[in-house]
């Protein structure tokens, strides 16, 4: 078996999720090649070559891949992928965008968002917002798979010494062009890989009040998340949404503040090791999944939490 893993990156650094995807590839077994497609992405290729378990790094460095447009990546990966038994990418917004195109061009099914490898052709994945886990067997000769990073412990970023090969394949589908980008800048750990996450919901009342949570996040070195209601209301940016249709997180500690615990939210955080809920409604469903529940007004409890944490940290 030979597996092609598509690296996720921003042209300057390798996204950690790639290490989780390589771990999924190791669980399948076989030679693992990593494709780094981007523009000016040499440093990413070097980083990928150091990752544990990688055989070869293929680099497609060209302006047409610079913004990771699904149309161009789809053609590139479909062409390269023909020689492999499995093609894997992280189930982030980039992978979700181009991978189904790869599957369609190869005339094979895609298996989305796997959380477990049972064998080389059988995988477990959540369906119905994580209310059920399906074990599916794929019969196509090439398996196109997106991997939920939280399902796999990452391989080590160091220790590997893969060869690096430059590709000269330029695929410009000519269907789309990049216009602009607005990325939230933050010094906080990335939500998807933070070991502590604190999220606020509609109970926060406005964006200004999220500053209370920021103070806690700064104390704990935590990433910040939110419920859909908080995002829809414009309190915080969309990329902070945790849930079925937002980010999936599985930190050591997840703190939900003023979040009721709708199934769509739980779907994004139920794999967290320890869950804390602060909510003034003792009947709120979030308490059914919380290891530690505090029934309290958040406007009293959160400042108190800040003071108590300062004492012990």
């Amino acid at each position: 078996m030979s597996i092609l893993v598509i690296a996720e990156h921003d042209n300057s650094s390798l996204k950690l999720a790639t290490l989780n995807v390589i771990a999924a590839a190791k669980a399948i077994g076989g030679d693992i090649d990593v494709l780094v497609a981007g523009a000016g992405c040499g440093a990413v290729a070097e980083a990928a070559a150091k990752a544990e378990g990688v055989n070869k790094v293929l680099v497609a460095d060209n302006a047409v891949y610079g913004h990771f447009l699904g149309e161009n990546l789809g053609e590139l990966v479909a062409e390269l992928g023909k020689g492999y038994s499995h093609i894997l990418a992280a189930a982030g917004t980039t992978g979700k965008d181009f991978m189904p195109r790869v599957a369609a061009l190869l005339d094979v099914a895609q298996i989305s968002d796997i959380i477990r490898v049972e064998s080389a052709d059988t995988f477990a994945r959540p369906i119905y917002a994580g209310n059920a886990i399906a074990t599916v067997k794929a019969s196509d000769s090439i398996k196109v798979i997106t991997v939920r990073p939280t399902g796999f412990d990452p391989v080590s970023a160091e220790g590997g010494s893969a060869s690096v090969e430059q590709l000269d394949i330029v695929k410009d589908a000519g269907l789309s062009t990049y216009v602009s980008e607005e990325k939230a800048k933050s010094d906080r750990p990335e939500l998807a890989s933070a070991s502590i996450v604190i999220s606020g919901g509609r109970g926060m009342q406005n964006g200004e009040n999220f500053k209370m949570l920021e103070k806690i996040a700064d104390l704990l070195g935590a990433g910040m998340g939110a419920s859909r209601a908080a995002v829809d209301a414009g309190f915080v940016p969309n990329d902070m949404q945790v849930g079925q249709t937002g980010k999936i997180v599985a930190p050591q500690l997840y703190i939900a503040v003023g979040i009721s615990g709708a199934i769509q939210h739980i779907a994004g955080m139920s794999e967290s090791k320890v869950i804390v809920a602060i909510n003034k409604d003792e009947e709120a469903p979030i308490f059914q999944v919380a290891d530690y529940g505090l029934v309290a007004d958040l406007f009293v409890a959160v400042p108190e939490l800040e003071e108590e944490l300062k004492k012990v940290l």
Partner: protein
Amino acid sequence: MKVLVAVKRVIDYNVKVRVKSDNTGVDLANVKMAMNPFCEIAVEEAVRLKEKGIVNEIVVVSIGAKAAQEQIRTALALGADRGIHVETDEEVESLEAAKLLKAIVDKEQPKLVILGKQSIDSDNNQTGQMLAALAGMGQGTFASEVVVDGDKVNVTREVDGGHMTVSLSLPAVITTDLRLNEPRYASLPNIMKAKKKPLESVSPADLGVDIVSRLSTLKVEAPAARKAGVKVADVAELVDKLKNEAKVI
């Protein structure tokens, strides 16, 4: 211009999902079904484009058993002009759905195809992208804003870390994210009117598509339940537990 909207019949998003005791699937007997929420957003976007005078005809398609006609009628009540039902009792995987939609695209020649980004039952998030690849079209996935500009469409997408805007040549495929719009409710008079709008039924064979199954579901299980936690009396107890019991801070 003409727009094609694909809508899927799924379990209502408010229903508590239960796994069948024989682990063959999810219990759908006597469960409330509805239009997939992302498809409602797709229909709404098409209707808004029509209200702006950019679109003159909205064709809505659903693939599935007879009952899927209910969701087509809902879309017609919301403002779509006519419906196409691709009738099949078989389970249709995303690639086959994309092939069926491609056949309809070939016939109808829409300038824009709008789908939901994800079905809330399979959570696949594939069909729109597959259709775009098969039809050789550009794609604006996870759209939070759609602006048609002559023979181009600018789509702002919800991506990890923020937003990204792409420009696509028409015809193109768009898949909707939650914040593209807030769908309206159908009024009673419009529900009545929808009953008279044309709804054509075709089979996969009519469209020249063989429904093959590439994935077999070996079992469906309930996720591991979290063990019940405790309520703490105050913030001091919470911090103490996090530090000394759970050891996570």
